[in-house]
């Protein structure tokens, strides 16, 4: 997270000598993101906590591993693969689920919290534009959290493989089946693809909607973010006896998978032919979603300029 810190002058003397009247936008953005990470430590504590839990559970399961492995050797490769990769998929699902919840709550509080505690008056006393601030806040769920999820998952799964290997070697079993059937690099490619396409791009309008509500609501942003949507769906159902709005929301929440992968293909195809990035990039749903996300963000920028403390 501190990769850019080299670019920041460390000593005040140096800073003064080269002090420009303007600070580059990238540096303003960097410090704005940094401040979000200081404030919302759950962004990294929650996935690390989830990873810790997974590793504890997995460590305990090591007692059963040698007998499980012996049973697995009798199965055909497809079943072996499924059996062995199960805890790894579970781990990545759990971490991803955790970070998604963190992202949702982060967004709901991002522009509301600073108005609630009046610190917005301090942030606005500094030469950082509302656009930069809102972009830095949007980058947390859309860029920072997916990358962090990837890093934490990779480290967790790597630790799991090492733990299994030690347990298998300890009971005199070969590592070949485990290492062959897990195909870690493919698993990680899939994970990264999923995070970028679904969590970052497909969910972007969801996060931006939450940010917009967070900038607008005077209280209880979580209710303002959800109840009006339910109300629209309900009114549509009563008035027209249709469910288009609800279907659209459902598609946004859970329908991304259809856009990024080919249906019915083997999920662990070594050539990754089941992934359809070209199809995803050319799908209308993606671009409509991103356009809506941009509109929500523009609204949030405007609201942040207009709204004072609550």
């Amino acid at each position, binding site marked *: 997270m501190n990769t850019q810190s080299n670019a920041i002058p460390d000593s005040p003397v140096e800073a003064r000598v080269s*002090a420009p009247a303007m600070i580059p936008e990238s540096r303003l953005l960097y*410090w704005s993101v*940094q401040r979000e990470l200081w*404030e919302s430590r759950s962004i990294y504590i929650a996935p690390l906590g989830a990873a810790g839990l997974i590793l504890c559970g997995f460590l305990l399961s090591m007692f059963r591993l040698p007998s499980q492995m012996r049973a697995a050797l009798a199965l055909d490769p497809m079943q072996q693969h499924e059996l062995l990769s199960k805890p790894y998929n579970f781990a990545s699902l759990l971490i991803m689920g955790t970070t998604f919840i963190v992202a949702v709550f982060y967004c709901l509080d991002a522009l509301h919290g600073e108005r609630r*505690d009046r610190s917005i*008056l301090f942030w606005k006393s500094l*030469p950082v534009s509302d656009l*930069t601030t809102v972009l830095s806040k949007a980058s947390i769920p859309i860029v920072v959290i997916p990358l962090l999820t990837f890093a934490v998952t990779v480290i967790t799964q790597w630790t799991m493989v090492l733990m299994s290997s030690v347990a298998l070697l300890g009971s005199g079993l070969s590592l070949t089946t485990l290492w062959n059937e897990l195909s870690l690099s493919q698993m990680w490619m899939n994970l990264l693809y999923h995070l970028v396409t679904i969590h970052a791009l497909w969910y972007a309008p969801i996060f931006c909607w939450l940010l917009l509500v967070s900038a607008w609501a005077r209280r209880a942003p979580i209710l303002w973010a959800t109840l009006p949507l339910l109300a629209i769906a309900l009114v549509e159902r009563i008035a027209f006896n249709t469910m288009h709005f609800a279907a659209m929301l459902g598609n946004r929440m859970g329908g991304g998978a259809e856009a990024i992968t080919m249906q019915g293909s083997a999920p662990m195809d070594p050539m990754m032919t089941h992934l359809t990035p070209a199809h995803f990039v050319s799908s209308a749903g993606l671009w409509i979603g991103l356009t809506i996300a941009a509109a929500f963000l523009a609204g949030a920028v405007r609201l942040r300029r*207009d709204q*004072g403390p609550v």
Partner: protein
Amino acid sequence: MACIEARGLRKAYGTTIALDGVNMKVEEGRILGLIGPNGAGKTTALDSILGLTPYQGQLRTLGRDPWNERDQLMRDVCFIADVAVLPRWARVSQLLDYVGGVHPRFDRAKAEGFLAKTTIQRSSKVRELSKGMVTQLHLALVMAIDARLLVLDEPTLGLDILYRKQFYDSMLNDYFDRNRTIVVATHQVEEIEHVLTDVMFIDRGRIVFDCSMEELESRYTEVKVRPEQVVAARALKAISERHAIGGSVMLFDGVDRQLLASLGEARTPSIADLFVAVISNQPGRAQGAAL
């Protein structure tokens, strides 16, 4: 170029009029006290000047349109709002890092120097500091910024007398010079009286009094009138009269001080007394409106 120039500044919240055609001009290098009762429009006026709230009318702060150029304006302007607004979760060191990261005119060494005079620890979180310490911290951050305009909105509200005195002392001694302008809104007038160069009274959204301290000293005289001179004194049309032990105290505008000295004990009025007199004389104000 005036530091702040406003003409016909108006702002309404629903049916409540917060600013009702404010005209003001603040030149560079002045220390202006903006004084008014609660709800007079002080904070709204300052928020407009800082680009925190939209307004109608003409307004330039340091030659910029504050509402549309708030972020550029903040390179040259600092402000401390009425209550502690530093984020409670932040550590002192994080605030120093952040302000240093985003502000081109922040001198970290200077801020560290100010903090060294206090008991504030770098590793403390804002939530762990007392209210007085939070104000010290905020002042240390602000004074380390080489700004042209400093706006303070009730900066010492809720602080004890030691912190209040220290606040204005360090602002004057360590910060103020002729290239900077300071605007202070407050109703604790007594403490800032001696530091001001100009004073404005605001009441119900209007500037009702605007005067430099030199002008105030030459124009206004307060006389503790001897009982036998009361009738003669009243003939000179005092702008206010109040009763005190041993006679009436009258306030005169533009009456020769030599003449007034013959009626009793004459001196320059305090801003508080002048404020009460001016505000009570506003049409529709009950006599004796207090600070």
